Structures are given as C-alpha cells and as structure tokens.
C-alpha cells in the first residue's frame, strides 16, 4: 500500500532528526572499527621503519596473537575480572543495595549517598587512593586494619593483585548496578507480593519466584552493559597496577595499550582490538538472545 503524504513527511523528519547521530556514529565508531580491521593486517608502528612505510602482512598479526601466551593470559585475566567484578560483585551488592533501599531504612539517604560516592572520584584519583590503602608497610589503611586484629600485614596489590582489582572495580560499579536494578524492581507491582504473602510465601520464596523472574530482563540488560563496559575498563586498573605484577592484572585493555603504546606495534595492537571487539559482540548477542530482545 502506498505511503500517504503525512507518512512520507514523518519519515523524512525522522531521518533529519537521526542524521546527526548517524554521522557521529559513522565518524567515531564505525569508521574507526573498520580502520582497526585494516590496521590489523599491516605492520603499522609508531616508530621504526614500519612507521615510515607500513606494509600489508596478511594474517601474521593474528597468527602471532594466537601463539602469544601473554594474549591468552590477558583474556583469562579479563574473564576472571568480569566474572568477579561485574557479574558477581557489582550485581550481588547492587541488588542487595537496591532491595535495601526500597525498604524504610533510618539512614536511607545517607546509605544511598555513600553508595553513589565512588562515582564522584575520577578513575585515576580513585586508583591512587586505593594504592595508598592497599600498599605494603605499616601506614597503609588495610594493613593497619588487619594488624589491629593481630593478623599479618601484606602488600595487598602484590600478593592478591587480581582479587584486589576485582574489589576496587566492584566498589566503583555498585552505584550503577543499584540504579539499574532499582529501576527494574520498581516495575514489579506490589500487589503480587501482597498476594504471595497472603498465600504464606516466605521472603526467600518471594525473591526466588517473583523478584528474580520478573527482574530477569533488567538483570540481563544490566549484565550486557556491565560485561561490555568491564571488558573495556582501563584507567582504574592501569593506575593501580599497570597490569602487574608479572601480568597478573593485565586485562585485555591494558594488553592492547601495552602493545600499541609501549611496544608501539599499532598493527598488532589493532589485531587484539578486533578480537576483543568480536568477544564483546558475541557476548552481546548471547545476552540479547537470553533476554529475548531484538538488537
């Protein structure tokens, strides 16, 4: 059926409204992504002969990458980091905070302000602040705390580096999780809980049978956003450990930085970017399928 004049006009207006966003998307997302794919097939570098005259090297960067133990280590570290910080830490604490803040607590405002505080500190500042807390020696906060209880002190970022960056990133991300999950909780009608209570359901049963199933779309959306953004975490961890000790906290983002701006191998760094992009894309599709939404 032919479109009416009004429909065509509405479509045109929609295109005009969308055009600036589309142009920005092409300029700052799509073009750089395509250029990264191109770079990944060259030996482009920031210095040396390859900086003057880069050449096409075919699949060499990818072959090298899949044989590089440091790349696999970075992938593994990133997996554990995302699992620990985003999927377990931030989600669980965010959900607990969201549920707690729906109740009538005495210090509700204070509590919610405290949870939001970590987002007020810039990443690098937060990183250095945590270094002072987790450092070795008698004056570091955590060491003084454990010493007070008669426990042995340690240089926490050296002894438990991965666990520490998970803790720090969890601290930083609770607020985002809480806000998103609070929005999800508010969509659940209170009548359902009241009916369940009248039927004699326990709080645990209500949580398992009502809250979780009805929250699932929000949870999956949160997981998608949180997973992809945690894969890209750089500043906080770089300020804390620079990927060390010995690659123990070398996330894929830090590995990319090190290859591109420490070893100056832009082509190889781009190949890692492409793989990280594919991993993020696959995870995004998986979440979207689980949430049964179209993307």
């Amino acid at each position, binding site marked *: 059926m032919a479109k009416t004049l009004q429909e065509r006009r509405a479509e045109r207006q929609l295109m005009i409204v969308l055009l600036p966003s589309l142009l920005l998307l092409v300029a700052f997302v799509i073009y750089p992504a395509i250029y990264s794919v191109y770079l990944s097939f060259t030996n482009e570098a*920031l*210095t*040396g002969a390859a*900086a003057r005259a880069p050449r096409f090297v075919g699949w060499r960067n990818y072959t090298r990458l899949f044989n590089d133990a440091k790349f696999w280590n970075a992938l593994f570290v990133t997996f554990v980091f995302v699992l620990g910080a985003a999927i377990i830490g931030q989600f669980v604490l965010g959900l607990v905070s969201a549920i707690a803040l729906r109740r009538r607590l005495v210090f509700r405002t204070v509590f919610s302000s405290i949870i939001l505080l970590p987002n007020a500190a810039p990443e690098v500042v937060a990183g250095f602040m945590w270094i002072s807390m987790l450092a*070795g020696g008698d004056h570091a906060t955590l060491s003084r705390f454990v010493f007070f209880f008669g426990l042995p002190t340690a*240089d926490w970022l050296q002894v438990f580096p991965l666990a520490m960056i998970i803790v720090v990133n969890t601290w930083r991300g609770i607020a985002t999780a809480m806000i998103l999950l609070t929005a999800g909780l508010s969509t659940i009608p209170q009548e359902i809980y009241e009916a369940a209570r009248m039927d004699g359901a326990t709080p645990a049963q209500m949580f398992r049978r009502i809250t979780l199933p009805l929250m699932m779309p929000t949870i999956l959306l949160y997981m998608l956003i949180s997973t992809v953004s945690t894969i890209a975490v750089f500043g906080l961890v770089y300020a804390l450990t620079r990927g060390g000790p*010995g690659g123990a906290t070398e996330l894929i983002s830090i590995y990319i930085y090190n290859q591109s701006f*420490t070893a100056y*191998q832009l082509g190889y760094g781009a190949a890692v970017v492409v793989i990280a992009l594919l991993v993020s894309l696959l995870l995004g599709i998986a979440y979207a399928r689980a949430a049964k939404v179209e993307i």
Partner: protein
Amino acid sequence: MKSTVERIEKKLGVKIEVVEYPAPDKDYLSKLLTELGAGNGPDLFSMPSTAAVADMVDAGYLAPITTEINAWDGYKNFYDVAKKLAVSPDGETYVMPYMLGIQENYYRKDVLEKVGISTEQPKTWDDLIARAEEIKTKTGAYGLLFPAGVSWGSGAFDEGFQHLIVGSKTPQIVTDDGKLDLNGEGVKDVFNVYKTLIDKDLMPVQPLLGPEPWVVPKYELFPAGKLVATTCGSWCYIFDWGRESKNPIPDVTKVVGTWTVPGQTGGQFVLANLAAPWAVNAKSANVELAKKALLEIGSVETQVSYAARIGNIPSNKDAASDPEFQKLTELVPIYAAAEKGTFLKQAAGFGTVAEGVARATDALLRKEVDAAGAQKILVDYVKETLGEDAVK
C-alpha cells in the same frame, strides 16, 4: 629552560611555546611518538632515552643536523663520547648531545665500613656478587640492585642490562650489518647475574613487580641502608638521595661512594648515554629556524642550568670553568670521568630490545625461567616484533 627560551626568542625573533609532557618516560615517549606519527609534533623536542633515537630516525621523524652542528663553534669542545653517541647508524647526526648521563654503581660506604666489609672496587662479576653476599650475611640488607622488570620500562635496559652487557664476553649487540645479536653468550651470562642475585635474595624483588618499582628500593631501602648498592646516575646524588630528595641521606657524597661496574672477567665500566637529547622535527614548519634554536640549546649556559635541574653532566668541556657549574659540587668529580664513558653501538630496534629485556628480567624476577629462558624471551620478542631478519 626559561633563560634559554628567552635567549632564543631574543636572538631569533621568534615566540616560543613551551609544552610540558607527562612523566614517566614511557608515557612521555608514547605521547611524543603519537604526535609525531600524526604529523603534529613540536618543532623541537627532547627524548627520554638514547635507545629511542635510531628508531625515530628510521621513522623519518628527525631532521639531520650533521652540517649545522659540525659547523657550529660550540661543538668543538664537546666530549668525544657525546659526539659519538649522537651519530646514528646511518652516519648522520640527528640530536644535540648537550647532556650526558653517567652511570655506575653507588654504594653505602658508611654501612660497609661499620660492619667491616671492603669498600674497594670489585674487579669481576663474581667479585661483585661475592660482595653482595657478604653484605647480606653481615647486615641482612640487600646487597645489590640492577633495575629489572616490565614496570621499570626502558630503565631495565638503560639502567640495568647495559651496565653488564658492555663488560660481558659479547660487549656489543649490533653486528656490522645492523642486525641485533642477541643470541650471544654474553646476553645469557648477564641474565645469569640477575638470576643469581634473585635466587640468593641479594636484590629486592617484590617492589620491582609493582607499578612504581623504583620508589621502594631507591627512595626507601637505600636511604635506610637496607639496600647497600645499586646502579644509578649522577642525578642520584642530587635528586634520589641528595638536597632535592624527599628522603635525603645526610652528607650524601661522603657516605655514598661509587664503584665502576666491573666486567665479567675484569675491566671497569662507566656507562655513558645521552641525557634527554634534543632534536628537530623533520616535519617542522621551519626546519632551518628550528635547527638554529637547537644550537642555542647546546650552549654551556643551558647545559649548566640543566645540570643543576636534572643532575646530568654537561657535554661541553668548557662547563668545567663555569662558576655556576663549580657550585654543583656533587657533579664535579663525575664530570671529570665522563670522557671514559662506555656505550653500546646504537641500532634501529633498540626500543624493542629494551622492552624485550624488561620482559625477560620480569620473568626472572618471578622465578619462571633460568638465564637461557630469559634470553629466549628476549630473542622471541624481538623477532616477533621486528621480524626474523632483524636478529642475527
């Protein structure tokens, strides 16, 4: 820099904008290379390490200054070692070698004398290690430090590996045809020194795996006498432990002595490199004008001013008679020894070698490999990065 800028502005009739780049060196170089690669680098800039120069020449970032610098009167009295260090593998000069970094071993004379350990110059690597063992046994302190590991960045190469390789069985790592000779016996022997120090707990390891590895050993352990010897440069007398330090050692030049780094089986080595050499951007809007400004940076006045600020050694012999330099009493004795400085022949790929050494020593620090394993990490990394052909 302020007085130099004013002088250049007055002499050349230009307006200069001074831009400060971030520290540490790694971040500084990354920013500089990114800007030069994008074609919008500064007209004149300094580089954090001699090792970066050959690669930057290959990249086409630096304008040659051979004709101008050789015709310049001020260059005649530069130390030969500075002039040699300034010449790139292609025979051209691209940098103003106005300051020298003179490095050797610094040790706590007071600590050794207190427990009756000899302060005499160690004669071989074994002698040096034996001294470190004696220090450990008699004082419980760490006996010796060579910077190592990925976190230390190019310092693992510039302030650690180079000290030992120049006195090894294979003292150069570049062949006549410009290839990197990293499979030599000397490289393995150098890594073996690190391994011995690490295995015998003679050098601090944990701090070197952290994000700012120099802080604990250089600024805490050494001033406290818990690390007794370390490689360092002339600047340490002023900044690390001297008058500009946050944790100064009283009477630093009296209680901290220097040893040259002994060779594997003999010989004494003082390492010389170019400290923050300046160069002209090949894509500068006015290369000729930038070259004129560069020559002004090479003046004795600027060298002395920099010596006071960064603790390095002026390359011009005329600085010796400068009254302002004579006030820098910590540097005067080191200045006299600058001519004897040893250095590695430069080649493209040194930046990659530096990163490879950092990775290899990092694995040694984590006790994951032996000396042969560390050498393999270095060779594999350089081959993967620069191609098989780059390594002999």
